[in-house]
């Protein structure tokens, strides 16, 4: 390929990346591998409206009040994962439960969450919470909290 044409290809490639990144953000608000919109920290989290889980039992341990996932660091210490990796999954489950989606659709989602738990009995609730990030930092308080559904069972080895 002649250099002039190659130069155009490179510049057009960069422009195309820009257009794809903007488009996926505008139309879908999701990623399209291997493209990414690079929207990082763009929205200031004034009031957070999200789903999370609260654990009331793990093995022989009973939590009262229930243990918030954000306070359950020990669940992620062994598997080298982070709570943020599970946020999308939990929000998808919360939305599906709110919509009363069929059980077979939600079963896979909550089973993937339960993979986090150690072997033994477990019980937890999917809750929808709203909070102000700064207030939460200072006093761990929610503005609203609605229990969507509770799950319990036993996880094998």
């Amino acid at each position, binding site marked *: 390929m002649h250099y002039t044409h190659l130069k155009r290809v*490179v510049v057009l490639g960069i422009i195309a990346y*820009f257009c794809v990144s903007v488009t996926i953000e505008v139309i879908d608000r999701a990623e399209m591998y291997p493209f990414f919109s690079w929207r990082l920290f763009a929205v200031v989290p004034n009031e957070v409206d999200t789903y999370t889980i609260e654990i009331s039992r793990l093995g022989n341990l009973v939590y009262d009040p229930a243990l918030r996932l954000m306070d359950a660091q020990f669940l992620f210490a062994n598997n080298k994962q982070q709570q943020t990796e599970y946020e999308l999954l939990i929000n998808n489950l919360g939305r599906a439960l709110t919509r009363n989606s069929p059980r077979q659709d939600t079963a896979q989602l909550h089973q*993937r969450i339960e993979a986090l738990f150690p072997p033994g009995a477990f019980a937890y609730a999917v809750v929808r919470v709203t909070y102000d990030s700064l207030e939460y930092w200072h006093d761990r308080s929610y503005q609203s909290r609605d229990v969507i559904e509770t799950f319990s069972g036993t996880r094998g080895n």
Partner: protein
Amino acid sequence: MRLLQYITRHILQPLSLTHLAHDAEVMQKARMLVSYYYYAMPLMALWFVYTSFLARENFDPMWPLAWVEWLSLEYISVILVLKLAFVAATLGAVFFHHHRWARILLFVALWQVHAFESSFLALNHQWYLLLYTSCIFIFLPNIWHTDIAHVAHDARRRFLLFIWGAQAIVMLTYTLAGLWKFVFAYGQYMAGEVHTFAMEAFAYQVANWGPRLQEDALLAPFIINNPEVAWPFYALLPFLQLFAIWVMVRPSLQRVWAVLLILFHIGTFLAMHISFTQFVFILAILFFNSPFVPARTTARELLYDLPVIGHLLSWRLGRR
């Protein structure tokens, strides 16, 4: 069309790679930059090897890892294969990066590593820039073995063009990050919410990420309790990011921007405990020894090369 020509000639004033390709020193730097990239790649392999994936839950292979299901490999075997392949590919690239096959192998290994890291519930953004750069570097013409004076001019400028392309795609990602900050700041400002340029914005980000990441960031309490101290840095960040792509037409600013962006990543780690190791790596390799940075640049020239400010200075005081 005339507007495009005006913008190109009078505002962008793009680099002439054809002209730069005549300079043996520039070409030597260009070759060294590519060599440094591949020499440093084993560090990324070590980082990947050192990371333990054994206890991770919810492995759901992305499509680039389709071979995992075809071969019905166990999870532990997948980890072993990827770690060995990445180490072998990076070592191969250290010694043979002047051969295209070694650069292709490294790209494939990186692609697989990135797909693997992205196969646990969420896509991994850390490896994207290395992936793009390795992909672009595959196409570099072979100008290593010969004395640079004997390399055809066309091959030299193609070599520079691919380095320029890799640098541009890296800076473009920062420009996009800056663009969204302005777009959403406008939306939040109109909605009467705390927005990116508000005094409390950084404190809100830090307070939001801290409990979710379950990590104690060193500066988090200070930023939350003293938002006015952190505000200037956070408010300037969108400008730094938005104009990142500008350094591709004003290369005298490349090192300055790279240093500022690395400081931003270090600041993010100290404030939120979010690490951007691969981003710091790529910024340092591609921009600290950039062949496009002029050998000597005065502070006055740097000032005139700044986006917007430089144009205002030129308009009010005349060119340089």
